[in-house]
Every structure is written in structure tokens, then in C-alpha cells.
């Protein structure tokens, strides 16, 4: 057996936007050319800036194909389409000549600029923020070099050449397709000054009619996911993980399994047993015949109820760390005319993406280990894969696949599925490519959940109904502790535990936001909108309680606190206006509203619901979003719709249950995401903005839960303080 290092030398800097200078680089490729950038040597972090043969940003080939090489991972949220839009806009390409592939292996090219640029990765809805200048500049540089090539070929001034719809044209010299000039363009001098289009010149950015470039492939069955990777001689494996987190393999008996037709081998990986078959069904059948004993001496044996009971005890204690302190909250609350307090509980949640986790690994004849998968943090996975393969990172090549959902599950500190695939392929002596394909129960029980949390909020009001003090205490596990992202923790505060609570847009004169991080052995992870999945619920439902105690309308109460937050106030006003807030709702219905900023995008939602006995029906949601410049308006709508569905399913009925340390939910029969019959009508309004674009993959999620809970109170007089709602209403 081989061990993974406990901690990798891969600490990300604190997340803060930076801009780095770039020098342009270009290279000839077969029959065409590629445009990329080298970081400015003065600002490059040379240790990370290893040279890579694996690509740049844009490649144009002789057959007129324009391929964008994406630094950003696409799990369905449309980041590939967004980057394609930026390149096509500046390049002057035809939309139907654009394709996008995933890049990897070169943090100097692909480092996420929202994270300081040192490492490639997607998360925190940063793809458009990181790519906005980078990919527009790449497209513009490629256009300038094509123009220079045509000017030379036709012996005309470059200024007389126009570019549109994938064609270079000159009034007298004629016209050429990009592909015809690509080879010559690669020889052109690299432009030193690159002017980008003015917003008034855009035809693709902001175009509501631009369709996703990948729609056809995702409609006719030809789009390839990792599950669809086919390689000569490839074998397929399913996993047997320890039933409790933290347990390890003591011994196993695979003789009966290996005697079964189609079962090739059963091998140990650092994370459990891989049952390898000639095909999926053989592996699944073989798995039933394997018996294993586990060393559970270090395993987590508590169930979710026991864990939450401990959180209930901890929430009453003073917080272990302080995330935000302004003024004297305790004194202000002690002297308040009225004190309101509430406690909240949130369950573990599974990502439960439709495509269960998977990865394919093989070693080529050149000794390079190739891994296909949904590599959301590629540099980290490349490094870990090299450790498992006992080689160096330059001998690992990642193929970044688009995945069937993700919602955070593909960005993990320990590269779980990559480790399993590489370890399994290595264990059989690299004699065949191995696809490790998790079954649904592997996926549901495979760990990395949205943590369970307990919250307590207390606030004081004066006689006029103004908030005098605010105290918020959060108890739960840290997502980043103990892993390569641990550097994010400052003064004992994991920012992912308190985001959405520690820097509220509301003017709160005396406030303390505290965190107690619990030590629990259930692996946890970011889950679409991360901290705001729970903080927004607690804050926004509590604000409604305060508004009621103050005798004020929830909208007016919030707006009065948003004097210094114009973008927050604007989305809230817009959603309320479009939803008819303040006018009577249709017969039998009530409304609730909520506001949340996450990842620098601002979203407000008004939910219109009815309650019949214990059944909540969400009929309609009006959503307003400000995400800066709307690059792909239709995709922004789609992400708001999807985010609302994702958040609504979770708060209504999702709960992952552990008993005695073992996950009880193995499939969609007991873990129940939203289905179409519970999906409301959704209306999305996008705020016109000239601010740089921010993300939309996650920010649609946080407001829906509190908006619905606030409406439930309006309908029933019952405050929802424990999720999921359907369970709370039954209690």
C-alpha cells in the first residue's frame, strides 16, 4: 500500500481579486495557430509557472474550427458558453464555428484570477469574473494576428481589413475564412496593444437570443460525459467504501467475486476496494460477492441526530471564534426595549448530481498517466494523481470533461475519485484503462456533504422598532480545515462557515457574529452557494421576525437598513415591484421575500405560495438579479431558475441522515430532490449594469428558502426554524 501525504503543499492564498500583467505568446499548431499568454515574469509565481505543452486559450485550425480552451470547469452552469461568447465577440467569429474544450496543466495560463491566479479552479461562481478580461483579450489578439496575416497576404493596409462572421474582408483584395489565414497568422508579430470593443459594439455579449453552443449535442445524445469515455480495452470498476467515515480496510475476501464471469479483479485503493469488471454490470454483480472487514477504530460513529444534539448544546455557549465584532452587541441587547431570539437547524445535504462521480485512468506507452474526469481543481488533482501513480506531475495529463451536474462535489481536497481511478489502474499494473464509475449508493454514501449547522440569532429593538444590537452564533464543521484550502481560515474562522452572515448589507449598529467549529468525522464540502445555503435562511427569516416585532412591512424594514447598499436595495425593490408586493396576492395565496448577496452577485426573490394542511405549494417565484454586465442573459435566467429549483428542493425535503456513523440514504427514493410537479413558475428580471460581470451559478439558491419560509409564516403563523420544511411542518 502507499499513503497519501496528509497535507499537500498547495495552500491557496486568501480569495481576493487581483489583476496581473500579461505578455502575449503565440504558437503554431498543426495547420493553424494558438493564442495564449505568458504571465509577466515580474509578477509570475515562478514555482507554479511551470511550462506546459498542453495549450493556450484559443486555437484556430485550417478547417476553420475555432476552439476555446477553457480555464473554467463546466458542470452545466454554462461557463464554457460564457467563455466562448467572450472570445467570439472579440474575434469576430461565427457562433457555429466555436467549440470549447477544457484546459489543464498550466496554472500560469489558467490560474483563477479571483483567487490570485496561482491555481486553476472553478468555484465561488468566479468563472466569468476571472475570464472577463483574459478571454476577451485572447479573442482580440487572435483577430489582430489574423488581420495582420491577411494584410501581408493581400499586400493591403491592415486598417482596411474588416472582420465579421468568421471572415476577413477587404474592399478590393477579397475575402478569406479564418482557417485560410491561420497558418500565416501564427507567424505574425504579437500585438503589443490590444483594444477591446466598447459595450456599444457588442453583438454577442448581452445578446438574449444567443443559444448555447452545446445545445444540439445535449439534445441528441452525442455529448460525451466522463461516464461515456470509451478507450480500447477499458475496464470498469465500482467501489466498496468503508461503511463508516474514517474506517479502513482490515481484510477482504474476493475469491467468490473473482470467479464470477466478467469480474477481472478486486483491488485495494487508499479509499476502499475497487471491483473491476469487463463492464459495469459485471463489476456491480461482483461487488455483491465481496466480503470485507473494516478497522473502525478511527471511524466517526455518531449519527446526524447526535451530532445536531451536540450543536444544540454548543450554540448556547459563547462562540469559540469571532468573525465580526462592531460595537457592544451584548450591552445594546441588554438595554433594548424588546429582545427577539431564534435558533435554527440545518441537516446534512448531498449534492446528488445525476452523473455519479467517475474518472478514467490509464498509463500511455510514453509513461504519461492520463486521467479523464470532472477536474474542477486540476492542478491539485494533477499533483495528487502523480503521488498515487508514484510519478511526477509533468507525467500526468488531465482531460477535463464536462459533467452531469456537480454543485461543488467535483472540487475536493483529496481528489477522491481521481485517487481511486489512478490507484485501481496502477493496482492492475497499468495493463488496461480503468473507469471507476460510482453507483448511486457509492455517490450518496461517498461523503462530502453540505455540513449540518445550528444557528442562534438574538437582536434588540428600541421603542421605535430600530435594531440596536445583533448577535449571531453559528455551530458546524469547517469545510476547509485539514485540507489544502486550510489557509483560508483566519483567526479560527472558516469564511465558508460564516459567509452570508458576517458581512451583511444591513446597517446593524452593534453586532457580533461568532463561530464554533465542531470536530466531526463526516466529510463535508461546499454545496451550491456554500455558506449562504444556511446563513441566508437564518438571517432573512429572522429579519422577518424583527420586522413583525417592529410592526413594519418586511420590504420597508429591509430597505430602511440598506441605505449603504444600493445594489442590494435595487434588486429587492425590483423583485418586490414585479411581484406586486403590497398588492393583494391571488385568492388563497401569500407572499414572502428574501434578499441575499453571494459571490458578489445580488439576488432578491418573492415567493407566492399556498398552504393546504401540511402541504406547501410554491406557485410562483419572481427573481431579480444584479450580476454586473449580463454576458449571457438567457443563461442568467436559466441559472436563476435552476438555482431556485435546487434551493427549493433542499429546503422542502432534502436531508441526509446518518445512524451510528452510517449514511442511511442510498438513492433518490429516500433522498428526494425537487421534481417537476413541485417546480414553480419563475420570472427573472436582470438589472442592467455596466459593472464587471460576476457569477450566476450559485447566487440563485440562497434567497428561495427564506422567501418560502417567510411566506409560510404569513400563511400559517408558524416559523420554520428547522429544515427540511416538510419534516418541520409534520412535527
Amino acid at each position, binding site marked *: 500500500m502507499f499513503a497519501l501525504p496528509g497535507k499537500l503543499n498547495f495552500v491557496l492564498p486568501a480569495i481576493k481579486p487581483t489583476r496581473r500583467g500579461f505578455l502575449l505568446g503565440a504558437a503554431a499548431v498543426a495547420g493553424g495557430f494558438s493564442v495564449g499568454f505568458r504571465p509577466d515574469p515580474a509578477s509570475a509565481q515562478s514555482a507554479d509557472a511551470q511550462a506546459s505543452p498542453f495549450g493556450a486559450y484559443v486555437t484556430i485550425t485550417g478547417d476553420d474550427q475555432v476552439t476555446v480552451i477553457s480555464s473554467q470547469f463546466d458542470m452545466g452552469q454554462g461557463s464554457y458558453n460564457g467563455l466562448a461568447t467572450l472570445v467570439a465577440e472579440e474575434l469576430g467569429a461565427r457562433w457555429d464555428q466555436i467549440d470549447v474544450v477544457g484546459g489543464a496543466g498550466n496554472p500560469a495560463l489558467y490560474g483563477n484570477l479571483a483567487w490570485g491566479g496561482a491555481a486553476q479552479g472553478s468555484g465561488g461562481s468566479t468563472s466569468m469574473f476571472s475570464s472577463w478580461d483574459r478571454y476577451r483579450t485572447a479573442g482580440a489578439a487572435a483577430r489582430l494576428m489574423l488581420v495582420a496575416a491577411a494584410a501581408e497576404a493581400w499586400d493591403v493596409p491592415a486598417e482596411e481589413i474588416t472582420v465579421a462572421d468568421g471572415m476577413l474582408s477587404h474592399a478590393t483584395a477579397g475575402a478569406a475564412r479564418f482557417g485560410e489565414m491561420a497558418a500565416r497568422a501564427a507567424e505574425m508579430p504579437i500585438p503589443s496593444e490590444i483594444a477591446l470593443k466598447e459595450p456599444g459594439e457588442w453583438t454577442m455579449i448581452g445578446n438574449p437570443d444567443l443559444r448555447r453552443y452545446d445545445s444540439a449535442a445535449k439534445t441528441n445524445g452525442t455529448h460525451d460525459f466522463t461516464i461515456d469515455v470509451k478507450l480500447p480495452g477499458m475496464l470498469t470498476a465500482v467501489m466498496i467504501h468503508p461503511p463508516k467515515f474514517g474506517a479502513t480496510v482490515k481484510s477482504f475476501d474476493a475469491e467468490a467475486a473473482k470467479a464470477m464471469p466478467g469480474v477481472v479483479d478486486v483491488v485495494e485503493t487508499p479509499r476502499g476496494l475497487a471491483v473491476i469488471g469487463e463492464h459495469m454490470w459485471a463489476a456491480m454483480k461482483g461487488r455483491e460477492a465481496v466480503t470485507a472487514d473494516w478497522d473502525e477504530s478511527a471511524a466517526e460513529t455518531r449519527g446526524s441526530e447526535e451530532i445536531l444534539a451536540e450543536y444544540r448544546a454548543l450554540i448556547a455557549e459563547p462562540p469559540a471564534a469571532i468573525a465580526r465584532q462592531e460595537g457592544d452587541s451584548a450591552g445594546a441587547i441588554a438595554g433594548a426595549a424588546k429582545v427577539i431570539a431564534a435558533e435554527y437547524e440545518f441537516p446534512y445535504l448531498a449534492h446528488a448530481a445525476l452523473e455519479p462521480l467517475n474518472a478514467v485512468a490509464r498509463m500511455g506507452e510514453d509513461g504519461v498517466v492520463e486521467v479523464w474526469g470532472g477536474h474542477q481543481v486540476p492542478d491539485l488533482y494533477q499533483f495528487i494523481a502523480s503521488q498515487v501513480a508514484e510519478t511526477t506531475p509533468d507525467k500526468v495529463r488531465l482531460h477535463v470533461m464536462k459533467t452531469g451536474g*456537480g454543485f461543488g462535489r467535483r472540487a475536493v481536497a483529496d481528489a477522491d475519485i481521481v485517487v481511486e481511478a489512478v490507484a485501481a489502474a496502477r493496482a492492475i499494473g497499468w495493463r488496461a484503462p480503468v473507469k471507476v464509475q460510482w453507483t448511486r449508493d457509492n455517490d450518496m454514501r461517498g461523503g462530502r456533504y453540505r455540513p449540518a449547522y445550528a444557528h442562534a440569532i438574538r437582536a434588540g429593538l428600541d421603542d421605535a422598532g430600530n435594531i440596536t444590537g445583533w448577535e449571531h452564533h453559528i455551530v458546524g464543521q469547517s469545510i476547509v480545515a485539514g485540507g489544502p484550502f486550510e489557509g483560508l481560515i483566519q483567526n479560527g474562522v472558516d469564511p465558508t462557515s460564516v459567509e452570508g452572515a458576517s458581512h451583511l448589507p444591513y446597517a446593524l449598529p452593534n453586532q457580533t457574529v461568532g463561530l464554533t467549529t465542531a470536530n466531526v468525522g463526516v466529510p463535508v464540502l461546499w454545496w451550491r452557494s456554500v455558506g449562504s445555503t444556511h446563513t441566508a435562511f437564518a438571517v432573512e427569516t429572522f429579519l422577518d421576525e424583527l420586522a413583525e416585532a417592529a410592526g413594519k412591512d418586511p420590504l420597508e424594514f429591509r430597505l430602511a437598513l440598506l441605505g449603504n447598499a444600493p445594489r442590494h436595495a435595487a434588486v429587492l425593490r425590483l423583485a418586490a415591484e414585479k411581484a406586486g408586493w403590497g398588492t393583494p396576492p391571488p385568492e388563497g395565496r401569500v407572499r414572502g421575500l428574501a434578499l441575499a448577496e453571494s459571490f458578489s452577485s445580488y439576488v432578491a426573490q418573492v415567493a407566492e405560495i399556498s398552504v393546504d394542511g401540511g402541504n406547501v405549494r410554491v406557485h410562483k417565484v419572481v427573481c431579480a438579479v444584479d450580476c454586473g454586465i449580463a454576458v449571457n442573459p438567457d443563461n442568467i435566467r436559466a441559472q436563476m431558475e435552476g438555482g431556485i*429549483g*435546487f434551493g427549493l428542493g433542499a429546503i422542502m425535503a432534502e436531508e441526509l441522515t446518518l445512524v451510528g456513523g452510517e449514511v442511511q440514504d442510498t438513492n433518490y427514493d429516500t433522498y428526494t*430532490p425537487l421534481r*417537476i410537479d413541485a417546480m414553480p413558475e419563475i420570472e427573472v428580471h436582470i438589472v442592467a449594469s455596466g459593472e464587471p460581470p460576476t457569477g450566476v451559478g450559485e447566487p440563485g439558491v440562497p434567497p428561495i428558502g427564506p422567501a418560502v419560509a417567510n411566506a409560510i409564516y404569513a400563511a400559517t403563523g408558524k416559523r420554520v426554524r428547522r429544515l427540511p420544511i416538510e419534516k418541520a411542518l409534520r412535527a
Partner: protein
Amino acid sequence: MKAKFTVNGAGREIDVPEDMPLLWVLRDGLGLMGTKYGCGIAQCGACTVHMDGIAVRACQVEARELNGVEITTIEGLGTPDSLHPVQEAWIERQVAQCGYCQSGQIMQAASLLAMNSDPSDEDIDAVMSGNLCRCGTYPRIREAVHAAAEKMRS
């Protein structure tokens, strides 16, 4: 066992274990990767195909049941040059996000429209609620089914 059946109009004969689900016969046996695995217990609908014209979950049909049947998968519903109206509507309404569940959604929707040429929202919800979409494309699925129904009626 030898399973002899028709897939997308072509006769196929394949030697597979008799308990092997059609899902894996299609994917691992015949290399038709458009039909997706999501749950294996008929809870998600990602593997929906048509068997003798009826929408079924391919994870629930065993190889021993296949002799003589006609299977249509997403690859056979339309052709790139001549898409099925449901596929056209799916593109026009920009339904897909990750796209993983959409083969199953489209096969289920095509089956619905074969039985009901003008479904209401309630009809759509009732028939399509067996197909999970974790990306939440449901509002556009409703729109696209209505749009496809209109195309097929005209």
C-alpha cells in the same frame, strides 16, 4: 444468453448475461452512450428509452426480456438532419444545462406526446415527474413540451 432484438430500426444480436439490464446492454454491449445511468432503481428516469413504443426505464428491463422487442434510444429518435420535434423544441427553448438527464427527459416527453397531443401543465407534471433534473430545467421542459406539441399538431 443471446439477445436478439431491434435497436433504432436495426436488428442486433448480442451475447450478454440474462439478468443484465437493458441500460448496460445498450451502453457497454452496443456502445450507445446516449442513454444515461443515474440511479439503477427507476427513480431518476435518466435511462428512459422506448420499448415497443412505450417509455420504459432501461435499468429495469433485463436482457432475457429483450428477444423480439423494438427499442428506440435517443440516438434513434431523430437524426441530426431531421430532429424529432421534441428535440427541436428542446434546442429552441434552451432546456439543457448539464444535459445529463435530457436524453431521458426527451424520450419521456416524446412518449407523452405520442399519447396526448395537447397536454396541460398538470399532464406534463404527472408524466414527467419520474424524470429528475438536478439542474432544475423544469420550467423550460414544460415550455418545450408545449412547443413540441404545437409543432406535432401543425
